[in-house]
């Protein structure tokens, strides 16, 4: 069953009067529960693709269906709500709110859903324990290491149990050990909760964690399926 269906997706940037095509009629399909890696060289369009899929940017043309919803038809307010309820994000630079504690950062998407605060904090605590930060709840984010901050970011992405988690080079600022921890966390979430995960990476050794890799070069897809061992 398709979680994401993309057809003829185009993204053209205007640099002055010059048009630069970042995505050229990309079509793809991602199944529910898949852990998909998007890989390619620098400037190939992998982050641009992730931003279009994650509704963080508006495509120039084409269609995106997420869990049966044509997201192109959504207005700004509806897109915001769709992101809140159905999508989770993990960014390269963690993108945490510096004035909130670890628990508040994780709880904020749940609070936005209108749940009672106590319930949101329970949910945040539970997911933070899952990522190994159960003892750092009241710390401010700048008191954590890079790897820990990225785990907070993952916890925030998971707190509303979204259908899809998008991760944009989440290991780019981490050492190998922390990168492995993050990838194993994604793998575990994917296996235990069955959430679809779409992750951009340029590290070849990350490939072993993905169910499938979408290679992209010059805004065009070169798809190759990787079967997971065992």
């Amino acid at each position: 069953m398709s979680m994401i269906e993309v057809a003829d997706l185009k993204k053209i940037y205007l640099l002055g009067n010059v048009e630069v095509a970042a995505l050229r009629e990309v079509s793809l399909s991602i199944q529910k529960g898949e852990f998909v890696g998007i890989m390619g060289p620098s400037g190939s369009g992998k982050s641009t693709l992730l931003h279009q899929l994650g509704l963080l940017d508006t495509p120039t043309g084409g269609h995106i269906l997420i869990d049966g919803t044509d997201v192109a038809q959504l207005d700004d307010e509806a897109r915001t709500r769709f992101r809140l309820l159905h999508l989770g994000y993990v960014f390269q630079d963690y993108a945490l709110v510096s004035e909130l504690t670890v628990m508040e950062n994780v709880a904020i998407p749940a609070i936005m859903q209108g749940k009672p605060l106590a319930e949101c904090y329970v949910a945040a605590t539970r997911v933070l324990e899952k990522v190994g930060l159960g003892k750092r709840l009241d710390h401010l984010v700048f008191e954590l290491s890079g790897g820990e901050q990225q785990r907070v970011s993952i916890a925030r992405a998971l707190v509303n149990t979204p259908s899809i988690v998008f991760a944009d080079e989440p290991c780019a600022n981490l050492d190998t050990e922390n990168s492995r921890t993050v990838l194993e966390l994604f793998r575990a979430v994917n296996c235990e909760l069955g959430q679809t995960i779409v992750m951009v990476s340029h590290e070849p050794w990350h490939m072993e964690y993905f169910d499938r890799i979408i290679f992209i070069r010059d805004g065009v897809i070169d798809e190759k399926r990787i079967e997971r061992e065992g």
Partner: protein
Amino acid sequence: MENNHGGYGVSLYLAVRAIRRGNRSTLALTILIIALVMVLMNFMGMIISGVVTLYNDQMINYQYGHVAIEPRDKEIVIADADALVKRLKQIPGIIGVSAHTGTAVTITNIKTGKFQSKSLTAFNPEDEQSATKYQMVITDGDYLSKGDTGQILIGTLLAGNEDESQDKMPSLGGIKVGDRVEVAYSNGVVKTYRVKGIYESLGVLIDSSAFVTRNEMDSIMHSEDTATEILVRGASADDAPALKYTIMSYGVEEKVKTWNEKGKGIMGDAISSFNLIKNIMTFVSLIVASVVVFIVTYINIINRKKQIGILKAIGIRKQIIVGSYLIQVLFQCVCGILVGILMLNAISFVLTVNKLRFPMGYITPVVDYSNLAVSIVLLCIVSLVSGYIPARQVVNEEILDAMRG
């Protein structure tokens, strides 16, 4: 906290944490700036209110009392004045009554020959003490006594200085207590008086006058049982209108005017001019306030542009983000206003202890609470508008642009 799908409770949640954990120096500086704007908006008003209060006090204490009774239309004097004074003294709420008889005279300094044409006023010194405060501002010599004849009380400006360049207005050229002046009345009588006392109220019109007792005036002008004006003192300046109607209800047919009605005209124009200056100052201060709040909020928001992008990315609505900034701006504004009010009160206290000497007297700054209320409301509105515009501008940016900072 219960939120109904991203309600403004989330704005409050974010705002409270931004205030608690944000940059304290920036917060303190912003509050201080708003406080100073608050002071700027109200300080001039305080001084002007002090000047107006001083003018009003001078009118009440030396010129008109709380209520002044004048001759009926087409009449020059109040007839049967003694009986009227007696009746007035019996009216509840009246503390003092004093009948004045004024006449045009020429006063000459016998020593120097300098003279001035003035209105000489006669009163009963005992009655006058209950209606005005001349007896409290004697700077040299003594106040008049009821039985005094051949003695005169002169204002400091009329007395003047031997060195004319020090005079604020034409004077008698340096009269002192014990000196003799010659007074030429309109009926041709010329009489020499000894200067018994010199007073100084710091009011220009007041301090250029001269007084004798009614007995003295009656003996020369035969003005017994008449008055050109009767001053009435009540409990307070604010009660003057009520006192006026009480007096009228007792059947007094002469013209009855409150001090405020008497003070219109030149004083009214002066006060209107002061108020105009005050309003211009308030307007300028508001423009300064709006620009300052706008700049501070704009810088604050630009510095947090990335965080706004993050909040939008994870699904927080624009209105919630704008709301959180408006709450922060409102908090800064309220703190600034409170600090500003404290500063105003501190300034007021210092200037009350160490009074400012203006040409017309010592000014005690008066906090004008209606002006204060208006400036609070205006400052809040200006702050909210100045906070809303940059917040709205940044939240309308594309998510990825905002996240790049």
